[in-house]
């Protein structure tokens, strides 16, 4: 089992906070320098998706599409057919929300080498309200064949994820958050597409997280430990292909699990894990995530609390699922 030593790499207590999207912007700059085939597209959202610095440094390889997400996805497919490695940058609600058909056919069916960056995911998008909070993106991407789906946990992992997406041959969708979230990983923390990492060992319950809420899972694990419950925490950043092996190894020990995600609790990480367990090793599973509802305006913290996606909620879900064993 690949275990990331907490002491070395996971500094969740003293974590500084940075928006995950910053990691995207940094990686694009690195890629701009390293690989002239990398091109970046945006649909009138250069700054907030963090595509802007690349655009300023490499204006020739930056394509401003205006507010036209369908066309942007198709242009990216064409660029890929012409040997480029395009990064499509918008908010997840619009891309792939408004470009799903283009993603399915122009990109995934053709296996065009397109990378789709979905910004502003999760309820923590906050005051913009329901329409801007992407809570369905993992479900609508995960179901498309040939597409890799990733939810990195912090800015550093987002940087690595972006680089890994560029190196991977084929379509990749990855999502990030708007707000600052704790940086839990460091440069040396390993990242590999499709490889989940056990970042805390335990035997009573498995907490499987994707995205910034991994931090809530780690904090809940500490609280559980204080009650004598040892939780295993898995960073399952890749939703598809799911690292079923790492997850099964853990639940065969703990016999129950909780999924933690800023996404509807249908079709996303919870769906993927439920499907894998049902096929291979059915055990009680609880979901921390959006309870099949639209979001609303509020501060990120208010909304995470209202819709039960905090450390406290992970804690309660763990207690509940252990009782169900």
């Amino acid at each position, binding site marked *: 089992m690949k275990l990331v030593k907490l002491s070395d790499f996971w500094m969740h207590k003293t974590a500084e906070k940075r928006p995950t999207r910053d990691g995207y912007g940094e990686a694009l700059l690195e890629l701009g320098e390293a690989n002239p085939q990398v091109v970046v597209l945006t649909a*009138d*959202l250069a700054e907030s998706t963090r595509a802007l610095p690349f655009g300023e440094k490499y204006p020739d390889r930056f394509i401003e599409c205006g507010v036209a997400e369908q066309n942007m996805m198709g242009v990216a497919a064409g660029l890929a057919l012409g040997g480029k490695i395009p990064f499509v940058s918008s908010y997840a609600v619009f891309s792939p929300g408004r470009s799903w058909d283009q993603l399915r056919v122009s990109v995934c069916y053709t296996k065009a080498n397109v990378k789709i960056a979905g910004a502003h995911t999760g309820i923590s998008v906050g005051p913009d309200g329901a329409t801007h909070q992407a809570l369905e993106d993992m479900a609508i991407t995960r179901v498309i064949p040939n597409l890799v789906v990733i939810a990195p946990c912090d800015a550093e992992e987002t940087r690595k994820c972006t680089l890994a997406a560029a190196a991977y041959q084929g379509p990749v969708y990855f999502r990030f958050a708007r707000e600052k979230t704790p940086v839990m990983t460091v440069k040396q923390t390993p990242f590999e597409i499709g490889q989940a990492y056990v970042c805390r060992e335990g035997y009573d319950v498995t907490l499987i997280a994707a995205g910034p809420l991994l931090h809530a899972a780690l904090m809940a694990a500490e609280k559980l430990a204080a009650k004598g419950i040892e939780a295993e925490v898995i960073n399952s950043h890749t939703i598809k292909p799911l690292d079923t092996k790492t997850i099964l190894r853990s639940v065969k020990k703990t016999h129950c699990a909780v999924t933690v995600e800023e996404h509807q609790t249908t079709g996303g990480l919870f769906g993927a894990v439920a499907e894998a367990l049902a096929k291979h090793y059915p055990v009680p599973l609880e979901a921390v995530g959006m309870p099949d509802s639209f979001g609303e*305006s*509020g501060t990120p913290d208010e909304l995470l609390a209202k819709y039960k996606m905090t450390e406290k909620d992970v804690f309660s879900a763990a207690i509940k699922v252990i009782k169900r064993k």
Partner: protein
Amino acid sequence: MAKNLQQMNKIANSIRQDIIKMLVTAGSGHSAGPLGMADVLTALYFGGVANLDPKKRHSPDRDRVILSNAHICPVLYATLAHRGYFPKSELKTLRKLGSRLQGHSNSHFDIGIDTSGGPLGQGLSQAIGLALASRLNNKNDAGRLGPSFAEASVGRRAMRDVRRNYHTWCLMSDGEFDEGQTWEALMLAGKLDLREVTILIDRNNIQIDGYTEKIMPLENFSDKLKAFNWFVIEVDGHNIREILDAMKKAKAMAANPTAIICHTIPGKGVDFMESQFEWHGKPPSPEEARRALHELRTLGGKIKSEHE
């Protein structure tokens, strides 16, 4: 009912002040678009051309307003509050948890808003649907509408909407004309000669990433609209008289639907915001809000603020 021009100019100014106050309290939101459209919204709700009245907010024959570029909702909220749809005191709840004034306007509350927005380019299609409903209600066969079945299956609110005629006003931004859905909708309305719908376009020449003619050029804009069989009127979007005249013309059209291109200055009324695309999506800081309010109260130094 309808206000005179002087009154309306004053109202538009108050609306602008409220926009500044709302945004600084919210701590997030859009400045440029809302300030730029205050005169158009004032004309729409106070000018007497559109059939809009808080007392008839559920009337089946009320005119409909679709705010397609819902990020400029602060100007809609402020206008609705001024018009009496809900208390002005509620404006300060913008973007707060539990508020009826969500970050992008929606139809979940009884505050005079007919639909939800956020993703650009979805408004005109809905306006066309509303206009078609109105047209269908006017058909002879409307007499056949049996209340029993309809009541059971459509629900109460919808029932109130049948068998009457209204005009649909769709507010849109220039940025929305980048979206393919907008052109699909324009084409359908052109096919149907849908004179029951009128677009009021915020032609402020900015979008998020910069000036429209750099990010995604729309010119020759009116040529495009005309090629899609729309009747086009261009007005100064800060001249309420011009706006109302165009609205009257649009309502009187016998065939084509009308697009009123309202040439506006984004951030209008606040010197340091005017025509700066950077103000698309950020609120003023408290200090900036103070300066903005001062400028609005004194009409840019032309008069002394009552408050100072």
